[in-house]
């Protein structure tokens, strides 16, 4: 069998879109971080797809690098979140938003 590559990219697009919606619509920072993870995952899937299309191992290598990036981002993001939690009791990004104006 082969997975039609178009369908694979439709999956990527849908996943990425879900992530973006989450990032834009949710106000809770934790959920926004999760949405960001979904988006990064979609990008990773895209590389696996492309790699399998060309039958190269390079796609998977980029995948490995992407999860490294994701790990570092999550680590920093959660550390920030812990620190922010000390300042505000909830994680509402709107309440964080005294900057705008």
């Amino acid at each position, binding site marked *: 069998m082969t997975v039609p590559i178009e369908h694979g990219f439709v999956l990527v697009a849908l996943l990425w879109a879900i992530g973006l919606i989450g990032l834009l619509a*949710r106000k809770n920072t934790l959920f926004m971080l999760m949405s960001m993870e979904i988006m990064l995952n979609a990008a990773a899937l895209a590389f696996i797809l492309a790699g399998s299309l060309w039958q190269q191992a390079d796609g998977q290598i980029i995948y490995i*690098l992407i*999860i490294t990036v994701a790990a570092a981002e999550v680590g920093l993001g959660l550390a920030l979140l812990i620190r922010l939690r*000390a300042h505000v009791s909830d994680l509402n990004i709107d309440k964080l938003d005294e900057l705008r104006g």
Partner: protein
Amino acid sequence: MNSLGLFYVSASIALLASFCVITQKNAVHALLYLIVSLLALALCFYLLGAPFAAALQIIVYAGAIMVLFVFAVMMFNINQQDIERESQWLSWQSWLGPSLLVTVLLVEVLFILQSQPAWTSTESQVTLIDAKAVGSLLFGPYLLAVEIASFLLLAGLVGGYHLAKALPHKPVNKEVNQP
């Protein structure tokens, strides 16, 4: 069921789970859905001929990174009050704008994908690219990338350590500025 069918099933699960992630009220529930989504994607990877990536997805992503999330959520100690407030925020109006925008984007993407004449893939069979192939490439031409990745993780480590560690106490004698 052939493997193509499996792919569609796992893809649908991934989509559904991701959707649940962003609509959940409770953070722990959302995390569980996120793990489901990651696992489903791992299956997709496997079916696309990338078993090594699939294994990593489960071990590193669903395993390590998600544990980090769970740990953090435990630290936040989200209570019932938080969850109630969260449900208040989840009004349908807040979804309308982003969803509309993203739908437009999606339609565009579908159009682009459909306009592609033919993907140049010629093989009828999925070729398996195993861990050995990936490994020899990774520690061959991509060696420097591994090194940089280690520095990236170091940056994450140092940064995370600095941000998350306890706040210092104020020194007794503050520095006096000369005018």
